[in-house]
């Protein structure tokens, strides 16, 4: 067990100032006066303490593509970004569609111990969109899978989606959809609109996302399953989800940092770091995603951290892989777009980056807990005044396919504690190393 730690004068949720006393993996007091004699004390002035962040959408790539990320490097990147839990997407090789694979990922995460790795199970065998995978076996495995997704691919068949929504109810699972109508997006390279017309890149129309979400929320309303929409990127999608919620349909949705900040204009230099699926959209859609996150239509922020090796991005746009890394920049981007603009408070950030994702993923016994005495000490310290420039060589991730390289972000996580153990700390917190 780690030595007790006291963080003094830290702002809880960006609100009242307190001391956090962490011992035996839990928060034991909010007053330094109660600290054990052997405690390490660090000054938390100016920092914001949040419950450890939870990512509902991470690609760790292991097993299969260890050249882009491993559970170890991905865990390190997550801890550095302030995360204490990540949901590892199922599109690995082999696909996480059996109890064996999800248990392997789960145990490897435990072994590394930097974040809690919760494997996501595939909805269909091999992500092929044909047969339901054995969700029950994955749910009952040691990995206790509650989140199911074919991410990277949509569950395109409406009957299959209906069955998944119904069947997942058996064990409280949520079906998580990468909403993309496949026929409308064959060969698609970027958002279909003014910029794609000029650049001569095949378009990915907004309707390809919206039509799937519309269909799915109606199905979820019909059969009563728990449905979650990944990486909402268009104004129409936000409208449909708002409508579905108003009808009482059990739907939740996520926004990614990149869809909150970047637009399709970023594609103009043909730099594949900006190639992502769903694609970056025009400003009007970005504004709608921001508004959706602000008014709660979009429940959470998830990174869609998608590492790719250099050679998969150092090439022609059409040949490049979709996706960008995001664990280490999520806090900074969210602060820049939503907090510094007054649209979300740090209390809201705790909700969208910790509490609600933990609840959707059914890991809320451990994560997304209040910063209160007796709770597990999963804590992220954020320095909102630590402006930094994103550098290609600065990532803990094995990959560096970040669209933010060269950009200045206003703040970042400076220390992360998982059950009281520091899993990441910046130079300022050297003392916590023990």
């Amino acid at each position, binding site marked *: 067990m780690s030595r007790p730690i006291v963080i003094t004068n830290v702002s809880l949720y960006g609100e009242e100032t307190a001391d956090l006393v962490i011992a035996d993996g839990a928060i034991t007091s909010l007053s330094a006066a109660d600290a054990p004699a052997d405690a390490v004390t660090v000054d938390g002035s100016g920092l914001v303490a949040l419950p450890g962040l939870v990512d509902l959408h991470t690609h760790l790539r292991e097993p299969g593509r260890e050249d882009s990320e491993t559970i170890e490097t991905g865990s390190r990147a997550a801890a550095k970004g302030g995360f204490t839990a990540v949901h590892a997407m199922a599109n690995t090789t082999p696909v996480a569609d059996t109890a064996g694979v999800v248990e392997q990922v789960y145990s490897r995460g435990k072994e590394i111990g930097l974040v809690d790795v919760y494997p996501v199970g595939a909805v269909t065998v091999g992500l092929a969109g044909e047969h339901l995978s054995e969700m029950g076996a994955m749910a009952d495995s040691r990995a206790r899978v509650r989140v199911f997704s074919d991410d990277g691919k949509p569950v395109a068949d409406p009957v299959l989606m209906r069955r998944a929504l119904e069947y997942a109810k058996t064990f409280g699972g949520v079906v998580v959809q990468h909403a993309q109508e496949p026929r409308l997006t064959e060969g698609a390279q970027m958002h279909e609109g003014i910029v*794609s017309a000029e650049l*001569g*890149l095949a378009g990915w*129309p907004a309707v390809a996302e919206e039509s799937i979400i519309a269909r799915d929320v109606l199905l979820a309303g019909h059969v009563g399953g728990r449905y979650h929409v990944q990486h909402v990127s268009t104004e129409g999608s936000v409208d449909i989800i708002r409508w579905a919620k108003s009808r009482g349909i059990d739907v939740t949705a996520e926004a990614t940092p990149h869809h909150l900040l970047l637009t399709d204009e970023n594609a103009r230099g043909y730099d594949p770091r900006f190639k992502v699926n769903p694609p970056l959209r025009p400003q009007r859609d970005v504004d709608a995603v921001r508004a959706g996150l602000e008014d709660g239509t979009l429940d959470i922020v998830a990174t869609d951290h998608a590492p790719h090796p250099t050679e998969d991005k150092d090439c*022609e746009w059409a*040949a490049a892989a979709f996706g960008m890394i995001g664990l280490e920049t999520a806090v900074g981007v969210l602060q820049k777009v939503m907090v510094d603009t007054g649209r979300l408070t740090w209390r809201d950030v705790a909700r969208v980056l910790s509490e609600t994702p933990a609840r959707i993923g059914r890991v809320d016994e451990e994560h997304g807990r209040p910063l209160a005495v007796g709770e597990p000490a999963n804590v992220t310290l954020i320095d909102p005044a630590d402006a930094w420039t994103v550098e290609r060589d600065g990532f803990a991730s094995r990959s560096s396919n970040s669209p933010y390289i060269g950009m200045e972000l206003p703040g970042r996580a400076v220390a992360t504690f998982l059950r009281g153990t520091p899993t990441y700390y910046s130079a300022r917190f050297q003392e916590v190393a023990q």
Partner: protein
Amino acid sequence: MKHLLGTDGMSREDAVLLLDTAAQMAATQEREVRKLPTLRGKTVVNLFFEDSTRTRISFEAAAKRLSADVINFSAKGSSVSKGESLKDTALTLQAMGADAVVIRHSASGAAYQLAHSGWLRGSVLNAGDGTHQHPTQALLDAFTARRRLVDDPEGKGLDGLTLAIVGDVLHSRVVRSNVSLWTTLGAKVVLVAPPTLLPVGVSTWPVEVVHRLDHAIDRFDLDAVMMLRVQRERMTGGGDAFFPSPEEYTRLYGLDRSRMDRLPSHAIVMHPGPMNRGLEIAAEAADSDRSVIVEQVANGVAVRMAALYLLLAGEEAA
């Protein structure tokens, strides 16, 4: 000019300079000795990831008439098909001391990337990238039209002229390049295509859009009509088809004798080639006095000489 990547963003001044220079180059090509010593010692690489014998030969002739050394590099296995990557090819060409790389590639943006990646120091000439740009084709089209339609053309643009471009706008790099260039030079451009063959976003282009060729002929005083090549597979792909049938295409968009006769008497007929006779253009239109299709090919060499001269002759390229 360091690179020639597209006509979008090209200034009128540069466009006119290219056309004027092409005119001087064309004049030298009427002499007995057509070879000029201008680019002696320079190396031009034709880097073709996509087959296009016509374009490659045209660039090769242009470079050789200016005494440059020409290396033809046909890189069939592009990184799209998991062969050698564009980056490695570029590094190889850099090591070989290429002063200019003429690149043809199926991926939109490949020329832009080659020019801006830092993989290569030389000039990059875009000889067609995906469905993005094909600037020398647009320049030779504009050059051909200026010669035919503008009196005493030196120093002049295409002011007051109206060009109709008919066909598959969606998949055409030739259209994108021509729209920018002709509008920069003061002409009006009318795009004629069914909505299935127009990109979403065309409404922001500085053009008029008409869905039927007959309407275009009725509504505009056309000085030039450019017929685009139509890919048959775009009409026969079942659910993927953009058009019901080749026959219907010809009925609605084909340039035949009767439509040609309704054009103003001075109007010219253009085609970037290769033609599908009987599909988008009838033989009597292709072979008529109005047709400048053969001139377009000849002018292609002069325009490419001009581009190579302007990119490579000055001190920036040294």
